[in-house]
């Protein structure tokens, strides 16, 4: 039986190889894994990358993408091939509408979507509600139900927990909690809030390294509200054809990571500052005796990589925005009816929170650079369109009329008279866009586009101010440089006649 299976797998693999070489001879098999924006997920992601590499296949890791939906959609669309997930999240959040009960039903639902799930890895990273052990002692709080008697406590939850059906809304209803002062914030920042005393209660992940570090107490879930969050690896079914040995590797993790082990690995990264890659490799060595060859980039290498990524994001999106927005501004100024429509649409785009805009692009363009560039492009349009429009509209009517009266056709008027006179306004719009663009581009790390946002995100996750500054300072410097660049361009472009102060000459004719 086993031999037959193996032959079957080999045959399948062979067929897949044939199909691959025929259909896409130019593209060698490569595997991309993703991870969520918290340390445990990044460690597991690194583990998957190491495992895939062990088979000789090229593997990439899109680290700390912005949230469950981003990863799920990226997996469905094939942007990534695998990522670590939790059964509770699948049942209670992603597939909650299907009302699945058992693991078998879950596997069935995943298969229908072209996905596979490994058996549980061995730890249950369920949510818990926690607070300072000392405070809990003082208020004599042991269970979540005990919170009912203390409406004055300030609650702060990770943004995901805040909004998930199985998060705060359900918890509040289930336990009838009376607290009014409830905030959503980044999970890693919540620990600092607890430590400083501005927050009293937060959500924990059971394997968080901080529970011990900050001397927190997890309140007992006496109504059994939280489901089980068994860690699993989700991967695309086609991995079994494209790279069966990689799928086999992923499945080797099943049952091999228990809660103390995971908690210890989290602590190694978060508290000792060891790189995720090294921690993941250490585990693989210990558990499977695999020698993983990994490289840790130096700070400078990372800096140049992030600079390169940031420049590409800004350069392409801003150039495209200039190329589109200036003509749109001209159109808006020239066509009475189109003007309000163009300005209105660009204005609406600008009101979409930038993070949401990034996420909206994912179904259209996947994850990584293209959706980030598209979002930045859309975000950069309004200031340029509006300033082009205003610059053209502000030209004194006498000048426009004089150009008309000379007999210059519309296009020539624009080129010879109107655009030169609007130069200053247009460039001011471009400068505004450039600065916004450089700043917003830092957010694109959330959808896997890298850039200076990457060290900022990692710094927030690891509570490392130095790392945050490694992203924040270059981003600020870049914004200033880009603005300076356009100042120089303005000096070259602005017609000389416009630089003369009108009051200089007052001689009689």
């Amino acid at each position, binding site marked *: 039986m086993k031999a037959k299976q193996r032959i079957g797998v080999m045959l399948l693999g062979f067929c897949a190889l044939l199909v691959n070489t025929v259909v896409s001879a130019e593209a060698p098999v490569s595997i991309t894994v993703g991870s969520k924006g918290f340390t445990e997920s990044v460690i597991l992601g690194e583990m998957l990358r190491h495992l895939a590499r062990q088979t000789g296949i090229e593997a990439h890791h899109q680290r700390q993408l912005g949230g469950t939906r981003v990863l799920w959609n990226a997996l469905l669309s094939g942007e990534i091939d695998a990522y670590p997930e939790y059964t509770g999240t699948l049942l209670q959040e992603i597939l909650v509408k299907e009302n699945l009960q058992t693991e078998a039903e879950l596997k069935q639902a995943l298969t229908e979507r072209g996905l596979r799930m490994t058996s549980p890895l061995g730890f249950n990273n369920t949510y818990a509600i926690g607070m300072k052990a000392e405070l809990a002692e003082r208020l004599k709080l042991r269970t979540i139900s005990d919170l009912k008697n203390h409406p004055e406590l300030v609650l702060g939850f990770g943004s995901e927990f805040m909004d998930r059906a199985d998060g705060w809304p359900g918890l509040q209803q289930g336990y009838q909690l009376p607290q009014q002062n409830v905030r959503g914030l980044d999970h890693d920042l919540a620990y600092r809030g607890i430590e400083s005393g501005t927050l009293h209660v937060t959500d924990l992940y059971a394997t968080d390294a901080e529970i011990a570090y900050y001397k927190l107490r997890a309140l007992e879930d006496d109504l059994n509200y939280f489901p089980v969050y068994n860690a699993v690896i989700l991967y695309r079914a086609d991995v079994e054809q494209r790279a069966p040995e990689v799928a086999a590797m992923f499945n080797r993790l099943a049952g091999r990571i228990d809660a103390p082990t995971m908690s210890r690995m989290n602590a190694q990264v978060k508290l000792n500052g060891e790189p995720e890659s090294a921690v993941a490799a250490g585990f693989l060595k210990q558990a499977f005796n695999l020698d993983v060859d990994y490289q840790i980039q130096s700070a400078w290498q990372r800096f140049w990589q992030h600079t390169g990524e940031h420049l590409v994001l800004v350069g392409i999106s801003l150039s495209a925005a200039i190329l589109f927005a200036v003509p749109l501004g001209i159109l808006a100024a020239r066509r009475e009816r189109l003007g309000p429509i163009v300005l209105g649409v660009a204005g609406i785009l600008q009101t979409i929170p930038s993070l949401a805009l990034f996420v909206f692009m994912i179904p259209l363009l996947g994850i990584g650079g293209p959706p980030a560039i598209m979002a930045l492009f859309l975000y950069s349009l309004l200031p340029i369109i509006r300033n082009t429009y205003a610059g053209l509209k502000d030209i004194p009517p006498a000048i426009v009329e*004089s150009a008309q009266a000379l007999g210059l056709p519309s296009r020539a008027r624009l080129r010879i008279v109107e655009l030169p006179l609007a130069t200053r306004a247009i460039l001011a719009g471009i400068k505004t866009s450039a600065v916004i663009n450089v700043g917003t581009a830092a957010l694109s790390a959330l959808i896997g586009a890298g850039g200076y946002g990457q060290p900022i995100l990692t710094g927030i996750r690891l509570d490392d101010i130095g790392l945050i500054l490694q992203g924040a300072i270059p981003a600020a410097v870049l914004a200033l440089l880009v603005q300076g660049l356009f100042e120089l361009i303005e000096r070259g472009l602005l017609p000389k006649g416009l630089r003369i102060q009108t009051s200089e000459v007052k001689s009689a004719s």
Partner: protein
Amino acid sequence: MLVISQVSKRYGDAPALAPTDLQVPSGESLVLIGPSGCGKSTLLRLIAGLIQPDSGTITFEGTRLSSENILQIRQRMGYVIQEGGLFPHLTVRDNVTVMARYLHRDASWIDCRINELAQLARLPEEMMSRFPAELSGGQRQRVSLMRALMLDPDLLLLDEPLGALDPMIRYELQQELKAIFGQLGKTVIMVTHDIAEAAFFGQTLVLMRDGHIVQAGPFKELAQTPAEPFVEQFITAQREPMAQLVEALR
């Protein structure tokens, strides 16, 4: 040269010009005059094709103005407005020659023509490379006139060309403009609200009120046989303060 027939114009609900007829023979100096809002500038802008009439036709040397031919016809009309309407980012030379260069006229012809016009407008050569912001109001109007005359148009349209100048310069420029008009022998249509200026320039004065032509004819005719009391009022209103001053000096 110019035949205006039943031309009217409204801005929204407000009638700016009632259906109007007017003929301007070749070589004539015609002045449109009247109080603010009487429709004189509207009429001039209709002739230049800057706005389209709601009804009626304008015929220029036998060709009916339309949006298709207006660009060609404008090359045969020179247009000067109050404050000059010069392009601030271009030098005097570039302002004057912008249309000629757009039409790819011969460079030596352009040079020759600009020298001719600078002499006519009494502007020194070195001023040609200045920007409008570096000129006085009177100089700007001279440049504006040069620009209007660059392509040697048959018809010269002037919309309060001296309206923004102080009285001394205005007086000086009036004399010069009249001399230039006499020298060129072109058809001129000028808009002003100043009766003395109108009488000084115009062979024919066209007095307007509320979008209607009240009376058209030489100044003498308007003064001696006013078509309605308004004509007399309009002339007296501007003459009276001066007359009183002269009286007081006696």
